[in-house]
């Protein structure tokens, strides 16, 4: 919650600064060409994100995604679009976003390499066949830098890059209902039956920096509201380079929809 408040404050601050700057420009030098006044528009956005951290292609270890639930779906953004050509239909948009990136999944796995561990530092790595529940709940501060093109009166499309820094990280879960084999697929077997679980928590292994691509479209309405949808795909893995407790690399891949209020 603390992070949400911080983020809201951040977004408000960003928002009010822009207004202040705009107003100051207005009052001080009316009608003069001002970078923050002419050919520029401001937007506040509320987004809902659905997606997750996923390998680029699902490895054979994962046999079935049994359930998927989006979590931490809210995001807030303020952005500014500066039109750069005379027709005012192409522009550069820069924003600041506070966004949740979460999911809860349950998968059936076969020979899934993982590590169960505890707070005393004891760790056991091995191969698990059974069910894995994963809960991810991260919050990022994200700066999108996008090219915007008004393709028609109703639509614009936008695409570009984003860079994120993590505000709150959480990646944990458990293995259950299966067989854990210590060290290798023929190692000492530990059956997990009934309520018994092997816990893992890889929160501290999450990379604090993310960057990736974003591509989307915006539908204008007669009012100041707009609807949008876009896709963000990370180019660097969710976990740090040295992280080996999951044998495949995972990337944040999300679809986002929402409404924008245009000033």
């Amino acid at each position, binding site marked *: 919650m603390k992070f949400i408040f911080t983020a809201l404050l951040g977004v408000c601050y960003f928002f009010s600064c822009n207004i202040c700057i705009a107003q100051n420009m207005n009052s001080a030098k009316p009608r003069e060409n001002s970078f923050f006044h002419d050919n520029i528009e401001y937007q506040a956005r509320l987004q809902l994100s659905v997606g997750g951290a996923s390998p680029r292609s699902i490895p054979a270890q994962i046999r079935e995604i049994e359930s998927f639930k989006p979590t931490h779906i809210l995001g807030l953004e303020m952005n500014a679009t500066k039109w750069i050509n005379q027709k005012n239909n192409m522009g550069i948009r820069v924003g600041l976003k506070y966004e949740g990136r979460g999911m809860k999944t349950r998968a059936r796995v076969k020979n899934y390499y993982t590590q*169960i561990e505890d707070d005393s530092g004891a760790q056991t790595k091995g191969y698990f066949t059974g069910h894995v529940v994963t809960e991810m709940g991260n919050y990022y501060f994200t700066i999108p830098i996008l090219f915007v093109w008004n393709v028609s009166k109703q*639509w614009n499309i936008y695409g570009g890059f984003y860079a994120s820094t993590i505000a709150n990280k959480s990646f944990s879960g458990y293995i259950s209902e299966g067989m854990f084999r210590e060290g290798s697929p023929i190692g000492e077997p530990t059956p997990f039956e009934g309520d018994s679980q092997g816990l893992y928590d890889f929160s501290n292994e999450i990379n604090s920096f993310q960057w990736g691509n974003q591509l989307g479209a915006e539908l204008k309405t007669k009012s100041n509201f707009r609807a949008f949808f876009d896709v963000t795909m990370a180019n660097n893995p969710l976990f740090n380079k040295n992280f080996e407790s999951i044998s495949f690399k995972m990337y944040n891949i999300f679809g986002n929809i929402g409404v924008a209020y245009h000033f």
Partner: protein
Amino acid sequence: MLIKKSYILFIIPILLSSCIKPEELDTDADILDAYIPAEYLTTDPIITNTSVEFRVKSNVDVTKQAPTFTISKNATIDPINGTIRDYTQTQISTVTAQDPRWKKAYTITFNKDELSTIYSFNHAELTDKDRYYRFYTIGTTGNKVYDWASGNPGYVTVAGDKPPNDYPTTVGEGINGQAAKLQTVYTSSFAAATGNPIAAGNLFLGSFKINLLNTLKSTKFGLPYTGDLPKSVRAYYKYKPGPEVRNQDFKVVPNVVDSFDIYAILFESRSKDNFLYGDHDFKDPRNVAIARIPAKDRLATDTWREINFPFELVPGKTFDPTKEYVLAIVMTSSIDGARFTGAIGSTLIVDNVELIYN
């Protein structure tokens, strides 16, 4: 057109998760069950991740035996089931998984030896990738005989890279040579979450097979016994209780000093499940005679102390030396270890455990 493209991008996450690759070959290469004619056996075959032991009656001809094995799905075994071999010495059977990169060599042992009546714990070896010790004795044919089992295999999952001497059951310095050293240790936060925050060191005649659902069902006490009713159990020990006794919620139990336990139970033999689970609490109806160290002898001592405590018949039971029985000798560094209560650091060192007869 571009708009259509962005639609495609939007569904990429869904597309990705639907691309499940073909299943890879099975890697399990386990012996799940082992069979010889039931009348040969004195107790169920003892199967571990790499060994099978048949404890057989003294009149069985081990030079010509053809055990059969149930193995993992899609695995193969070499030699094939029903192959007659001479089991005077330990033989090897190799189980190969469906994925042939994974195979396991099992030692297959036929053991005709009667239970020993004296144990000095002078033979111990590192096992399971050298992570912990297990004790053995030398059988009449030179085979290693693993009468004693401990909870160490269950500790592997939470031990991380702890050295063998930090496992609950390890070797200590004995009166002559080695002794058995049992110590109560912290398990892990996730074991604690399920009510098993501590593990007492234990050592017992019997076998161990992990059961996480009910840890007390992992320990199977008892091995086949024939002969007279022993008069008593004699042993030498040192004991140091840990500073704070904690219960299964890991809360400190005030004003309690930890203590250890050593006991022996002779109980009636049966064909199936011929053992006592760790939660027997001395109440099993099969029990015939029990010897347990009395409270007054459970003392903290840093020098060797001799104890000798008698077998007492369970009321209403008689002992018939011509019948088959099962003997369990159990030692633990925390007397309430079976209830996951004990003091981390409690250490029991035991040597020269002997059954005393008239």
